[in-house]
């Protein structure tokens, strides 16, 4: 049993707080749910959709089935979405919304109370009763209005139309960016400099708020160039540091990515993707910046790129990023996107709360920042500890960090920097193989598509179209070990990507000689839904009775 709810209307009509209140109550009531939003780059007006999927088992994607409940705050939503209502679906049209507003004004002398009223209606539809609600609601949730909403649902004969049992024991809820923020703090991040840019802004806000109480500094920079250079300064000075941005802002950071590579200054860079090129669609989703991240920064130096596909991966990989950035003294990238950033999900299980700690080794005056070592890793320390002077240079440099034009030394320094990469194999995060391992078809995904593809694999298999799914959350480097144990030979490989050219497919070919046979690409700015993916796979790769 599931219930899917679409709440649509204009920016400024209170959608964001309805989303917040509904999510908070579903969470506290113990429901499994998934919420995401399709929104325009507008402060007021336009048309935004907030999408909820409530279920009796964990859900982490849009199902793509027709809507069970449609809430239209404006006529436009009603017009656009009415056709997608399921057969037994309920509709709260602008007329009902007006009635809710009237009740809010009449009963509470405050039109803002329509939000909890509406939430009450919706909760009642999925079978929530007043006693449960009273137990879960807090003062700020406006229990009276919620209860009035429940009564209204009964009045409208909508109560219990999609009864769901609260079965979740997941004690935590996150959106994708908070999960990265939380993971970063676990990773020992103590410094962030940032310039606002959708859809990375919420991650900045997360750290800015955390910095109020924790030994963490957040600095709003004058531009992205300043942001990353500040972060490199702070990292050099001894704090684990990060920046976050989206494609256009990242472009401005790329000179400093190369600087991080050359100076071997650890840094974590989060890129929340949105559709490009250029300003593109600022509030939509895409996976179009993989290539850019793979080769950003002129010259040659090692890097690591993670692309989490679930909340747990977001927490874990964010934490891991800081460890790896320090271990290899390199820039580490986290590629996420608007879809993951803005999706609210439950974290099943309790996160491990140990905080990664930096080492502060103390050296004497003989310290050389770039000492040549067999594994390419030179000892890292910070100014002001012991007698060591920490000297770093963007020019090619000596072991002591001074500018050099000794061309033999140049070669040794290039080799040293690249040598670090060869050790990274053993730290590779392996891809996850899911679904029917013996299937002839394997769906290959990276980043935020993981949960969508895995649910699609389940559904396809259960519908008689067996498929396997292979998900990469470390997208660079790709190492042969990643394909050991996943026998892809003979399988038809289908890349699922939220872009128009199949960038990851190209990378698999270049790095692992893996030939992708087909691609399912989506680039209208929205995520895949499970249904849509299933339909596409079934139609393109299956015939009745088997694989095409």
């Amino acid at each position, binding site marked *: 049993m599931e219930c899917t709810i679409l709440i649509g209307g204009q920016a400024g009509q209170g959608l964001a707080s309805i989303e917040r209140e509904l999510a908070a109550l579903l*969470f*506290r009531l113990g429901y499994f749910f998934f919420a995401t939003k399709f929104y325009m780059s507008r402060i007021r007006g336009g048309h935004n959709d907030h999408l909820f999927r409530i279920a009796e088992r964990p859900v982490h994607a849009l199902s793509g089935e027709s809507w069970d409940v449609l809430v239209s705050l404006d006529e436009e939503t009603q017009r656009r979405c009415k056709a997608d209502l399921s057969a037994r679906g309920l509709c709260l049209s602008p007329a009902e919304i007006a009635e809710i507003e009237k009740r809010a004004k009449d009963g509470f002398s405050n039109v803002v109370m329509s939000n909890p009223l509406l939430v009450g209606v919706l909760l009642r539809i999925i079978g929530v009763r007043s006693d449960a609600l009273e137990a879960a609601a807090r003062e700020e949730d406006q229990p009276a209005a919620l209860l009035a909403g429940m009564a209204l649902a009964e009045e409208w004969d909508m109560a219990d139309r999609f009864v769901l049992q609260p079965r979740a024991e997941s*004690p*935590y*809820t996150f959106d994708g960016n*908070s999960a990265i923020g*939380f993971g970063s*703090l*676990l990773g*020992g991040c*103590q*410094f962030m400099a940032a310039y606002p840019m959708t859809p990375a802004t919420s991650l900045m806000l997360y750290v800015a708020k955390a*910095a109020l*109480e*924790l*030994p*963490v*500094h957040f*600095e709003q*920079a*004058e*531009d992205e*160039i*300043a*942001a990353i*250079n*500040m972060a*490199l*300064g*702070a*990292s*050099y*000075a*001894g*704090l684990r*540091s990060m920046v976050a941005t989206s494609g256009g802002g990242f472009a401005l950071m790329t000179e*400093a990515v190369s*600087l991080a590579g050359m*100076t071997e200054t650890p840094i974590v860079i989060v890129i929340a993707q949105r559709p490009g090129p250029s300003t593109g669609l600022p509030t939509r989703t895409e996976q179009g910046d993989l290539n850019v991240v793979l080769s950003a920064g002129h010259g040659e130096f090692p890097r690591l790129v993670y692309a989490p596909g679930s909340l747990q991966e977001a927490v874990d990989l964010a934490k891991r990023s800081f460890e790896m950035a320090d271990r290899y003294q390199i820039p580490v990238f986290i590629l996420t996107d608007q879809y993951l950033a803005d999706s609210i999900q439950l*974290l099943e299980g309790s*996160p491990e*709360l140990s*905080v990664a*700690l*930096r080492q*502060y080794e103390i050296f004497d005056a003989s310290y050389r920042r770039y000492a040549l070592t067999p594994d390419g890793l030179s000892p890292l320390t*910070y*100014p*002001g*500890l012991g*007698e060591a*002077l*920490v*000297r*770093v*240079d*963007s*020019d090619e440099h000596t072991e002591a960090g*001074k*500018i050099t034009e000794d061309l033999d030394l140049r070669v040794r320094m290039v080799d040293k920097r690249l040598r670090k990469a060869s050790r990274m194999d053993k730290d590779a995060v392996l891809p996850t193989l899911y679904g029917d391992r013996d299937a002839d078809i394997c769906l290959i995904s990276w980043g935020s598509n993981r949960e969508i593809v895995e649910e699609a694999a389940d559904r396809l298999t259960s519908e008689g179209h067996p498929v396997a799914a292979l998900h990469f959350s470390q997208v660079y480097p790709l190492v042969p070990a990643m394909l050991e144990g996943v026998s892809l030979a003979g399988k038809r490989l289908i890349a699922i990507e939220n872009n128009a050219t199949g960038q990851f497919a190209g990378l698999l070919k270049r790095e692992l000689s893996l030939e992708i046979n087909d691609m399912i690409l989506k680039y209208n700015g929205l995520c895949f839904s499970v249904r849509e993916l299933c339909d596409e796979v079934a139609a393109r790769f299956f015939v009745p009775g088997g694989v095409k």
Partner: protein
Amino acid sequence: MNDHGEIAWCPGCGNFAIRDALEGALAELAIPPREIVLTSGIGQAAKMPQYLAGNYFNGLHGRALPVAVGVKLARPELTVIVVSGDGCNYGEGGNHFLHSLRRNLDLTVLTCNNQVYGLTKGQSSPTTDLGRMNMFDPRGNENEPLNPLALAIVLGAPFVARGFAGEKEHLKGLLKEAIQFRGTAVVDILQPCVSFNKVNTYAYYRKRVYRLDVPGKDRREALEIAEIQGDRIPVGVFLKDESRSPRETAGRLFRKSVTPGDMENLLQKWHGAA
């Protein structure tokens, strides 16, 4: 030349004297090298940290300031000094000059102003005079030169001064004062470039430079001093406003860390049902 290896500047370059003055200032202030962080960009002046005793971050052209801001925010206890060229600090890095000054952190910002791009062999810089012929200006520079000190005053820098490489002792004094000042101290240093600037030479400056006895008493007076140009070029402290304290930094962060308890709290408060 201590143990800094061969110096990459041209013989006669004004940077030698600036280096000496800065070395002297740091020595006389008795700041141990391990507590000094010099940040610089790219250019001839930006090589300065290579020839001084201290930690350094010799980063990107134009980006010495944000690196310094990051270092200072992370480690307020360190003495952080930016030193780069006019092209670096006022040209490529102009946006950081604008906005870093607004932060009023306890930084010293030094610019070796030779009115030219030295390392790239002689193009006009933001401070090049009108009409001056340079590599890309065969007809003469057509852009109004930037007045860095007037700019710094308008941007609210509390300590603003000009020095001259030809007056090493005086410069050393200025640098000491700037480093000791609590807040952002901006010092523009007239630096003859013997290879690419054949006009603003030592002789040129010697004829024009005069010492200020006292700083301007407020921003307006300081601005008036900053506007003096042509035949008389004041050096010294234009503005020294000790009434404003520098922006507070977060306090001690270094070697302090978020604890599992902190994370537990945060988890419950922001992500939990509690």
